[in-house]
């Protein structure tokens, strides 16, 4: 085939069978279904919900059509793309002594697990969110939850984790792990949640 001919084939999208814009819906990592809605296509507002996993939807026409292709027909290039998604973030919970920014002795070993997780992730970032139980005033608990998050940040920094990859935030008694009335001591609510991304 002359060069020009091949160029035209590529440019008109005849090579490869599915060369227009497309959506490939995959099963979630936990095998969950998920869905994507086409809200606009080819200039036409709509709400075409795609919920078949391992399906391909051609985009750009006024009426997008979805075809179930099955897992076996997901292309190599698409598999390569999915394989390079970063690993899911991992969460840890450290519990604290009552009314104090002191980690319980039971929770201390978690610090080693956090450090190990940080070490194996390139481009890592770590988010520390402090919480308090409902004992005491909500202002005091805001401060206490911040102090707890900072305590963890300072310990991790002392163990060699760069401060520039960590952010700390206090949520006071605004996000209880165990729902209680106000003024209740609850060990499960005195915590710092650590997300390693």
């Amino acid at each position, binding site marked *: 085939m002359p060069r020009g001919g091949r160029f035209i084939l590529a440019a008109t999208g005849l090579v490869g069978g599915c060369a227009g814009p497309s959506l490939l819906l995959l099963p979630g990592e936990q095998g969950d279904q998920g869905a994507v809605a086409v809200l606009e296509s080819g200039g036409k507002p709509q709400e075409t919900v795609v919920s078949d996993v391992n399906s391909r939807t051609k985009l750009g026409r006024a009426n997008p059509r979805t075809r179930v292709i099955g897992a076996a027909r997901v292309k190599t290039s698409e598999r390569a*793309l999915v394989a390079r*998604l970063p690993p899911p*973030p991992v969460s840890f919970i450290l519990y604290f002594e009552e009314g104090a920014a002191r980690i319980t002795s039971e929770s201390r070993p978690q610090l080693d697990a956090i450090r190990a997780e940080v070490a194996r992730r390139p*481009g890592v970032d770590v988010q520390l969110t402090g919480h308090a139980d409902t004992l005491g005033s909500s202002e005091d608990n805001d401060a206490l939850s911040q102090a707890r998050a900072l305590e963890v940040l300072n310990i991790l920094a002392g163990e060699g984790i760069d401060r520039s990859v960590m952010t700390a935030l206090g949520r006071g008694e605004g996000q209880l792990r165990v729902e209680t009335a106000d003024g209740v001591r609850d060990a499960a609510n005195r915590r710092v949640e650590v997300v390693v991304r």
Partner: protein
Amino acid sequence: MLRRVIVAVSLVALAAQPAWAEIGRIKQSIGAAAVERGKARLPAAPGLQVQEGDVLVTGKNGRISLTFIDNTRFSAGPNSRIAVSEFKFDRATQRGSFVTQVNRGSLAIVSGQIAHSGRDAMKVRTPTSLLGVRGTRFVVKVP
């Protein structure tokens, strides 16, 4: 009294945290891979902080992987041009809005907290369509 001291100390220390402008970080890149920020073109090295408005650009052999602060994850393939046009996220309430524009190339996405925070809070635009993300894992291609 002790509590009051803690308040003073913690407010100072929190103010010293990195700017909240960070919306994500590059985790991995291969080949020709850059982040365009206004007129600047930054190499997409692991650890680079991504900001709202950034454009991910890859060449023929380029790839970029990144994770956002709402736990959304991206993997951009070769010959891509992908703009993170809008990213608003409240770390405390875990709600926000997120618009990504895939102008060219391919992008695998695992959605995060923003997509969960409201119907179509996360959207993906291609030159000819608009998608509302209602969950989890998919690939958008714009050849």
